[in-house]
């Protein structure tokens, strides 16, 4: 009897926290994919301005995509803000996100709108980040090497065992690199380059920004990453120099989508417009994020490499973001590059 009552009260206690996230007015659930500090900043700024209380969770791009997909039957999130464009495009393709046209679209850069059009209005560019690499100045000096300036420098024999990049199977950054080489040099030459690079690579990391962290710690000399990630490491005081390769380079479009079936659709649209405003986009660098904003009227952060100084290739997001092309290229990379001895 006593045990039964005990069990019952435990069961009752268990139900206590059995609460549903509410759909009441004045709330917004934000899935944030950029750096924590920037996520916090966006959350508090939006709350301060609108009085809407924001429940923000920060996850990586892939994690958020997997979550949105798993929750599709009963969506819990409203806005998916930030992170590389491909998963946003993929979600748009699968109807996981909602069409929305913001009045701010008129002020956006062409690449941000290209993302919007490619997705049928389901996602939009909020920032851009160019691919490049960073090197550790101390290690470079110790080895007495010339600073690398171009992609071509990285396949020189003196860099053997000194270069890191992520595995394109696991990291969107590295896949952008793979697609960049293919578009920049042509597919055959691109793969020849990757094979040559393979000989110099000491490790394919899992996460996209890991190579530059390793470089900052002195564990590797060169890391192939997005330039803004390298700038962030430099800003923490690491002996890192950021390079925008002389041949030109690809880039990512950080994107934003409203989740299909969002419970707080009005607040979601309000946030969407808010996030595209120039004054809001300029605040990113207060949180040590140095991507290039998508609103033409927003001033790019002075620390970040100017997009105008970078030779950007005409990156075909629709083609290289599609599942078939991606699987094909990754399979080829697995078979022809990663299987090679080094």
């Amino acid at each position, binding site marked *: 009897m006593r045990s039964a*009552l005990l069990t019952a009260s435990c*069961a009752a206690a268990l139900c*206590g926290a059995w609460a549903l996230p509410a759909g009441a007015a004045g709330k917004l659930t934000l899935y944030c994919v950029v750096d*924590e500090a920037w996520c916090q900043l966006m959350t508090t700024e939006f709350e301060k301005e609108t009085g809407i209380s924001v429940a923000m969770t920060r996850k990586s791009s*892939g994690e958020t995509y*997997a979550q949105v997909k798993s*929750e599709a039957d009963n969506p819990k999130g409203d806005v998916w803000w930030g992170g590389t464009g491909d998963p946003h495009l993929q979600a748009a393709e699968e109807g996981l996100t909602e069409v929305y046209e913001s009045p701010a679209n008129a002020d956006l850069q062409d690449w941000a709108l290209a993302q919007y059009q490619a997705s049928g209005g389901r996602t939009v560019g909020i920032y851009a980040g160019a691919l490049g690499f960073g090197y550790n100045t101390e290690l470079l000096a110790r080895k007495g090497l010339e600073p690398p300036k171009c992609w071509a420098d990285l396949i020189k024999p003196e860099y053997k065992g000194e270069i890191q990049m992520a595995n394109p199977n696991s990291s969107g950054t590295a896949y952008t690199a793979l697609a960049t080489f293919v578009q920049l040099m042509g597919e055959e030459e691109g793969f020849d380059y990757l094979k040559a690079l393979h000989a110099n690579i000491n490790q394919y990391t899992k996460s996209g920004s890991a190579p530059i962290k390793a470089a900052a710690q002195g564990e590797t000399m060169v890391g192939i990453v997005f330039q803004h990630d390298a700038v962030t490491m430099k800003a923490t005081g690491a002996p890192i120099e950021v390079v925008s390769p002389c041949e030109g380079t690809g880039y990512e479009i950080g994107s934003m989508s409203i989740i299909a079936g969002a419970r707080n659709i009005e607040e979601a649209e309000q946030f969407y417009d808010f996030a595209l405003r120039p004054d809001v986009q300029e605040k990113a660098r207060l949180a040590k994020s140095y991507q290039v904003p998508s609103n033409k009227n927003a001033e790019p952060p002075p620390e970040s490499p100017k997009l105008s100084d970078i030779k950007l290739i005409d990156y075909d997001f629709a083609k290289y973001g599609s599942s078939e092309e991606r699987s094909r290229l990754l399979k080829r990379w697995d078979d022809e590059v990663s*299987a090679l001895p080094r």
Partner: protein
Amino acid sequence: MQPHHDRTLVAWLLVGWCGFLLLPWYAQDDGFFSLAWLNAGLFTDRDYASGLAQGLWLGRAWLLPLLVPLLLPLLALRQGVDPARRANLLVLAGLLGIAWLAIQGLAVNHRGPADWLAPFVPDRSRQYGMGAGAVLVALAFLFTLTNGLAGRGLVKGDRFVAGSIGLVVAVVGLFVFVPVGMILARAFVPDQFAGQFFDARIWGLACTYSTVRCGVAWNSLLLAVLTGLSTTLLGLAFALIATRTPFPFKRSLRVLTVLPIITPPFVIGLAIILLFGRNGTVTQFVATMFGIEPGRWIYGLPGVWFAQTLAFTPIAFLVLIGVVEGVSPSMEEAAQTLRADGWTTFKTVSLPLMRPGLANAFLLGFIESLADFGNPLVLSGDFDVLATEIFFAMVGAQHEPSRAAMMALILLAFTLLAFWAQQRWLGRRNYTTVTGKGDSGVPLQLVPGLRYTLYAVTIPWAVLTVALYALILLGGLVEFWGRDYTPTLRHIIAAFGVTTGEHGIVWSGTAWNSFTTTIAIALIAAVPTAAIGLLTAWLLVRQEFGFKRAFEFGTMLSFAIPGTVIGIAYILAFNVPPIEITGTGIILVISFVFRNMPVGVRAGIASMSQLDKSLDEASLTLRASSFTTMRRIVLPLLRPAILAALVYSFVRAMTAISAVVFLVSANYEMATTYILGRVENGEYGIAVAYSSVLILVMLVVIGIFQLLVGQRRLGRRTAVPVAAPVGAAS
């Protein structure tokens, strides 16, 4: 004893009726304890009403058939009902109730009734997740069913045992098998199956004859075997030193062995890089001393093995210490009386008696290594293992859930294999050493040769651990870990700053939110984890029932499945009614309970197989019920196992990462996801400062647990210092 059992049944029926009449049937937005349902209309409001009111006048008529199984048991309670008929009635009521709960829950969900049902439900009513009322009714049905089954003679008619088995089967089924089944079913694509299974990336053996990498399956297996062996041996060494040597620093040794498991993920890996990486302190020292070119040997098998050994030895220690303490001194003394020397006694008596502990320790180390995610992520280099591959197949640039599911299956198969091998090795021998007879023997001290060997192994290991932890504690207090060692408090202030504002204290640090949530959830999860774990162990060791092996394996299953898979599976299974708990703290608690329960089970089994069954029998002969026997006899003797289960589940909940990533929500953020975010951004300072704080908190909590649970008092004397090894004296 009939009246007593009827009382339990009546109590459960009352619970069921209360649940149906007086408590809100559905889960509420603002939580049960806001008590909003009390004045919001328990009988009138569509969101807050009880089951009966919902069924009668709020348009959810499909709830009314539940009255039948709620009324049926009342028939069984009448005087003079034939016991067999009574039992059958109860079984029928329980089955009907559970079946109808499931059917109506699945047929009408948050979008409305299923298509085939729509014509019968006029207003296209929706249903939300189960709330307090529904849960109590479900429990009432479950125990009505087990009560009836016991009445029909299952498990010798013991109602408590039947109820316990029913509960464990129900919760494990619901929170392990359902979600895992769902994800495997969804991910399994028939025409890709063969291609994904016979994949060189998984099974390739090229590394044995060329420089090409081997498949991840072999890598994982090799790593798991190595880690299982090294952790078991080291754990045994520490356990022997702690119990059977005059080693002066036993207490600090115990703290040391506990340190690695209370360390949040990534931190050990990062610290190892700082010592042994290419730019690490030790590497640079060796490089300048001996002119060796700094290498990257730590990235790959050596590094991961090293980190895992460091991280999982304590688990082996926790399992083995109880076992080593439990080995009966009398048996050893008997061996010595027969003129065996110290070494022979140890080899032929003590060590074989520790077999269950050794096997369990190895099994845990093996499985832990297979499922470990944090260490390979930081240190594995190009040595890919299943756990990380599964994670990136799931959330990487290439979203391949079917490949992830395939690898998860392989991982499961390895676990099964280890489990089977363990059973074979233990065989049907008897390892009982704690009997009802007082044991007046003195635990045998180790022979000097063995003792010094153990010292030689463990002391360097302990020194290394101390160095790593000094580095970690230091890391939070300097400008930039690994580069700029200027002392600073800014990381601590950023994470745990407290200022005073106009309304009193302001918790301005960014870590407070996740910190308090983590501690609360870990504490809440620890108790049911230990309870269900030990209950299961007791059922496995002490009770006989038909499907015991399957039952045992089922309870071990969740441990073997990678956290990533569990995380996604939980979203798939529990994001929609009838059980809708995503975004709550409950889902975190439940995932911790079922992921960590196996440790409670293993620790319980290891300790319990040493307790002589005659102890229970004596109690049962004196007409104590099986519940009383467990409470008064078994539990007090299981204190080390209880402590191990409590500590371990608390610690794991504090340090888990891979499943948690998917289950955290804005209101329930966990410390590890916060740390992961910082590590991803290269802000090691805050990550490490936070980790140090967590380590200190966990040490304090473990101390408190130890005080609360207390020591088990076996009738054993401790060796008096003058007593030389008995072998020499005789």
